[in-house]
């Protein structure tokens, strides 16, 4: 189980290869990759600010929670900060479990936590203006749903 925060790009292929090589009992591996999207076609780049002293411990806590909740064999989170161009990968999650539903749920749960509870803030830098990305009500709702739903 690992959680990394870094400014540099990560190598998704190498990360997943090493993640998969380390698992023993899992029949299912799920990955998620978040990519900078430029819906308007006019974004120059995204800037991700983070709360350094809090970030890695916070990610590690979410990873530990996901592992316990979904009986994951392992889970990995990598999240970047700093300047990212459209098309670049912002972050990735990987989960491994005996059964596919747990691997999916673990990754989905981690994403819901990262969206609303990990201390990152995204700013979009356009040609003529900049804009902090606003949090979305549906992200809070997605997170809240995990406390209500019976485990699949």
């Amino acid at each position, binding site marked *: 189980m690992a959680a990394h925060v870094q400014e540099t790009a990560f190598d998704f292929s190498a990360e997943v290869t090493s993640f998969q090589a380390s698992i023993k009992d899992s029949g299912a591996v799920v990955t998620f990759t978040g990519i900078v999207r430029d819906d308007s076609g006019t974004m120059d780049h995204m800037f991700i600010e983070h*709360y350094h002293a809090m970030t890695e411990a916070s990610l590690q806590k979410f990873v530990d929670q996901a592992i316990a909740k979904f009986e994951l064999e392992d889970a990995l989170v990598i999240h970047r900060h700093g300047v990212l161009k459209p098309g670049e990968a*912002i972050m990735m999650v990987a989960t491994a479990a005996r059964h596919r539903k747990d691997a999916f749920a673990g990754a989905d749960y981690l994403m819901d936590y990262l*969206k609303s*509870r990990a201390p990152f803030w995204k700013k979009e830098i356009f040609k003529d203006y900049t804009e902090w990305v606003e949090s979305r009500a549906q992200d809070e709702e997605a997170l809240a749903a995990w406390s209500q739903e019976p485990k699949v």
Partner: protein
Amino acid sequence: MKLDILYFSWVRERVGQSQETVETEAVTVTDLVADLTLRGAGYALAFVDTGAICVAVDQELSDFNTPLKDGCEVAFFPPMTGG
């Protein structure tokens, strides 16, 4: 007592700095915000709607009723947008 205060995202931009140490007698986060608001127009603007702001005390997400101790690290920021 002395507190280390951190600001992130547009809270940082409105306040005009990312970090400062303040001397305060604030008992809770709410008291601290009242103190900070007096420091200038940028602070007042940053804290105009505390419903739009989150706080972490010693790197743990907290609420505005959280009591403060000498040497605490208190961070203010808008809802997080990671992932």
